[in-house]
């Protein structure tokens, strides 16, 4: 691995290539990171920018074999960001528990599901909660300037 990615410092795996996954991947690709993007649907990769040269892998991100193919053993940061909470939680747990990935993040839109996974070392982020915060912040700024 190191041989081929001498200049790359971190290996990042992203499961789910929707709006969020592709944006994350494109963002990390600009930094010095090696990104592997996994999606069950091959067509999803069409959303990536043309200059995206990182690894893509079509398969189920909760499947150990697929994760091994993505070299999860050498992975530093793992993101599970598909549109399905349960898929994300399962993929994140497989990465954390079975492969011992240090930093594991999961998109969990249903905020009530998130707290249970904190003790397991999974950072679960709820997008509706984030949007709420942003909306309120924007509203606050608007009212302050009015």
């Amino acid at each position, binding site marked *: 691995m190191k041989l081929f990615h001498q200049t790359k410092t971190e290996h990042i795996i992203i499961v789910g290539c929707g709006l969020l996954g592709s944006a994350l991947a494109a963002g990390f690709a600009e930094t010095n990171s090696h990104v592997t993007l996994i999606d069950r649907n091959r067509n999803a990769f069409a959303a990536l920018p043309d200059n995206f040269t990182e690894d893509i892998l079509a398969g*189920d991100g909760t*499947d150990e074999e697929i994760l091994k193919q993505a070299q999860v053993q050498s992975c530093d940061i793992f993101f599970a960001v598909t549109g399905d*909470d349960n898929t994300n939680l*399962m993929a994140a747990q497989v990465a954390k*528990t*079975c492969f011992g990935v240090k930093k594991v993040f999961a998109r969990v839109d249903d905020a009530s599901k998130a707290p*249970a996974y904190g003790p397991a070392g999974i950072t679960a982020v709820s997008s509706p909660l984030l949007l709420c915060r942003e909306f309120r912040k924007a509203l606050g700024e608007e009212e302050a300037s009015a």
Partner: protein
Amino acid sequence: MKILLINGNDKADFLISALKAKGHTITVVDPDYSRCRALADTFEVTAFCGDGTKEVTLAKAGAEQADAVVALDVRDSVNLVACELAKNRFHVRLTYASVNNPKNVAVFKQLGVDKCVSEVDWIVNQVEQDSLEDNIKKYLPIENGRIVICEAVIGDRSPALNQKLWEIGFPPQSIVSCIIRGEETIIPQGSTQLAAGDKIVLISSSRKIDEALSLLSGGKPRKKTG
């Protein structure tokens, strides 16, 4: 037992009637309203319409008092999250998950689901059982098939016929636990001699079972993984 059945699909029907017949109390959770209604009407069970991977749904369905949760969805991730929720949030003693991808059985166990049933594994085991030599009557996999108990009959052409157990040289991790000779049950010793018609109850790791059986039946050990 009070059992919570999550996302039963078509399997729910049979399971509900079977479990009810054994005297268990069943509560169904399913996201499909019409299916909930149908199950409630047909089987006179309590049915809750909702997402079984959500805390509110499980709370409403009485997960707090449930003895067991059975998750039957076609998506493994749903079953995993439902079982975890039941275990961690509602302290349900037993969680069972149907596992569609057999590779996930190990993963589920590692993540704390008590029992996993993989239909694919089960069918493979059944085929295995049926394809074994005819003189092997029963084959019972336990611990997800890591250990098997099986019953073999000593036929007239068995290489083990009239041999003493110590002479047969069973592989390690396999043991003859019992010999049934007519009405008699023999707890064997190394010096016990096998006779035609003896039923041998063999306990073995699944890796060694073929080797052990071939010593009794004379067939060549087949290659087997896991």
